[in-house]
């Protein structure tokens, strides 16, 4: 329920009144990292939200200029640390485009499987922490329990659970484990019913719907103006998914749908829609994995890795559909072994820009609901 703001002069009887400025973060349980929000409040009603960022700035782009192309991969992991696989994926796709090389088909299939598993893992964190923001603690732990299974899959593949350094330019660091296919299939059969469980516990809960439906409505045109992408854009009712609309890797070989927000519980583009689109996307990701896991061709995953990467002078912009939205890499080469410039267009950074637009006129409790629903990762906002 939106609260109408009365735009009237608050000074009464000659007494000077002013809005309360509340500093939310950088140490706050639900700013999802080290985000600082400066809120101007009238009672509990929000007048203005100013996000302050930079607490997690690690000079990724500058670092990249001093590294050779393969050395940048571990740095990309550390941007969006909940979707590391996909960051590497995007970087590898961009450098391969710059080099003009084609990776073996086996590599592409494994990348897609890993990418989609990562998407599910990332969405599980988003949905779980969102539940916790609204006050439901149990779904959070259920989601992490399921995410743990995905991390185990990654662990048997490459040994790491969070920052993988797995997808390399031209190939992969390791081949998949002999048990990987079986375990992934087991995971799919295990995880399908858990989506329903999550729906029963949280998605269709009356209190949850009251808190999220018709809150933080992001209309389609505003979303496009602010450059929103990914699940947030789709929740506003715009069917746009780079996996289909600007396809890369082998995504064009799979059959999957693009879920969009339909305003089932309120208005199109409200917090509930953004939440629900992610649930639907997990189901689609499972479909992709199911198709891909059976078709992984034989071959060598390290065969295509170039010994020395020295791209020709030029520049490339390549984008992939990260779990959070459009992750673009702009890479400029001056012909040496190090990139001259790496610029990242990250979804979280872009999405944070729309906060003020979304929050105006709602209450303090709604800020948490809105911030959780746009699902930012501060590691990627600050880079």
């Amino acid at each position, binding site marked *: *329920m939106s609260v109408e703001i009365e735009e009237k002069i608050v000074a009464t009887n000659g007494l000077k009144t002013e809005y309360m400025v*509340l500093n939310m973060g950088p140490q706050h349980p*639900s700013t999802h990292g080290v985000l600082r929000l400066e809120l101007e409040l009238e009672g509990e009603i929000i007048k203005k939200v100013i996000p302050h960022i930079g607490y997690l700035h690690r000079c990724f782009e500058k670092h990249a200029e001093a590294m050779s192309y393969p050395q940048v991969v571990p740095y990309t992991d550390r941007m969006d640390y909940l979707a590391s696989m996909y960051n590497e994926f995007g970087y590898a796709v961009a450098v391969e485009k710059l080099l003009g090389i084609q990776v073996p088909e086996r590599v592409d299939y494994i990348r897609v499987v890993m990418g989609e598993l990562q998407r599910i893992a990332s969405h599980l964190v988003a949905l779980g922490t969102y539940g916790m923001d609204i006050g*439901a603690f149990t779904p959070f*732990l259920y989601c992490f329990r399921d995410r743990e299974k995905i991390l185990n899959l990654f662990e048997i593949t490459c040994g790491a659970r969070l920052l993988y350094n797995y997808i390399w330019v031209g190939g992969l660091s390791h081949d998949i484990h002999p048990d990987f296919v079986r375990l992934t299939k087991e995971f799919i059969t295990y995880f399908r019913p858990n989506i329903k469980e999550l729906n029963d516990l949280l998605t269709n809960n009356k209190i949850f719907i009251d808190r999220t439906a018709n809150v933080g409505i992001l209309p389609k045109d505003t979303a496009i103006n602010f450059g929103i992408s990914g699940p947030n854009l789709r929740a506003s009712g715009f069917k746009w998914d780079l996996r289909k609309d600007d396809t890369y890797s082998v995504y064009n070989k799979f059959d999957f749908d693009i879920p969009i927000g339909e305003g089932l519980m309120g208005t199109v583009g409200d917090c509930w829609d953004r939440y629900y689109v992610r649930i639907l996307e997990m189901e689609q990701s499972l479909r992709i994995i199911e198709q891909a896991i059976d078709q992984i061709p034989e071959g060598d995953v390290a065969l295509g890795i170039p010994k020395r990467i020295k791209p020709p002078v030029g520049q490339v912009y390549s984008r992939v559909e990260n779990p959070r939205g459009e992750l673009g890499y702009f890479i400029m080469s001056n012909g040496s072994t190090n990139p001259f410039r790496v610029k990242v267009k990250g979804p979280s950074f872009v999405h944070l820009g729309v906060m003020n637009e979304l929050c105006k006129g709602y*209450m303090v*409790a*709604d800020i948490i609901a809105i911030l959780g629903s746009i699902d930012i990762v501060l590691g990627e906002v600050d880079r």
Partner: protein
Amino acid sequence: MTYDFFYKLFGSQIIAAIIQSLLPLFIFILPFALFAVWLERKVSAHMQDRLGPMRVGWHGWLQTVADILKLIQKEDIVATASDKPLFNIAPVLVFVGTYAAFAAIPFSSAFIGSNLDLGVFFIVAVSGFVVAGILMAGWASNNKYSLLGSMRSVAQIISYEIPTMMVIITIVMITGTLNLNTLSEMQTGHFWNWMIFGGPVFGVSKFLMIPFMIVSFGIIYISTLAEVNRTPFDIPEAESELVSGYHTEYSGMKFAMFFLAEYANMFAVSAIVVALFFGGYQSPFGYVGHLFGLQWLVPIEQLLWFAAKGLFFVFVQMWLRWTLPRLRVDQLMTVCWKYLIPLAFVDLIIIGLITLI
């Protein structure tokens, strides 16, 4: 009665009164609060596929004792900018408000702190201390989050007292007494004499009353949930919004007092619900003591029944907490003013009409 027993033992009214007033604290409130904190952690853990505390004692049952020992040793931090007198009084006031409520709760026919004729009224009145304490804590902390939390808390507790009182009036109207002990005695016999099943009257009016009594119970249970700041009404201490609301700035033993008061309060409101609707300390099936002619056993059985019933409702509170999300401030007020209060009014009128039959 325990008072008479101690009076005979020491021959002094003052000593007997002091012991009588300290008894519930030491034999009930503190052990219960410790147990409830442990229970909450275990209940939540098992609901979430976890084990919870396992290290200190069997299945971690000494964990809360260890926690309290830790809290006693902790430095008592008072922020420089805080209003020190108020800051120091607030936790005491909250604890006293909760503790005093236990005075009028009949644990068994032989053990009641003070057999007040205004028992229910007294409990509701002293609970007002808690509101003042919370507001003081929030204001004195000089912290915006605490202030927001305490403002929400006060608005919430005061609003939800209205439906609680309406339901209590309903019961008082039927039974004609405010004395919780008398109320419990009236519900003697078997469980169909409990107020939730229409009370100890027989005839058509009893059956007519049952649905309305269930509605009344629902109203008072929801309201008491809000009064003790439990999910889905834990808005004053909404962790994800206000860090931990009015007790953000408190540390050490002062924090522990808020903490213990919260858990003691959970039992206090459950006890009121039990006394009003579920026969108080009465057994649902009759007593083993009567069966074997051991009259001294009956009060002990009653105490056990009372604790069991109270604990069941405390468990339900925990169950709800780990299942439901949290409402927003305005939605919370909507629930109270738009649904509970009108419903309670209608309920009061209808039950009044039924009692006239």
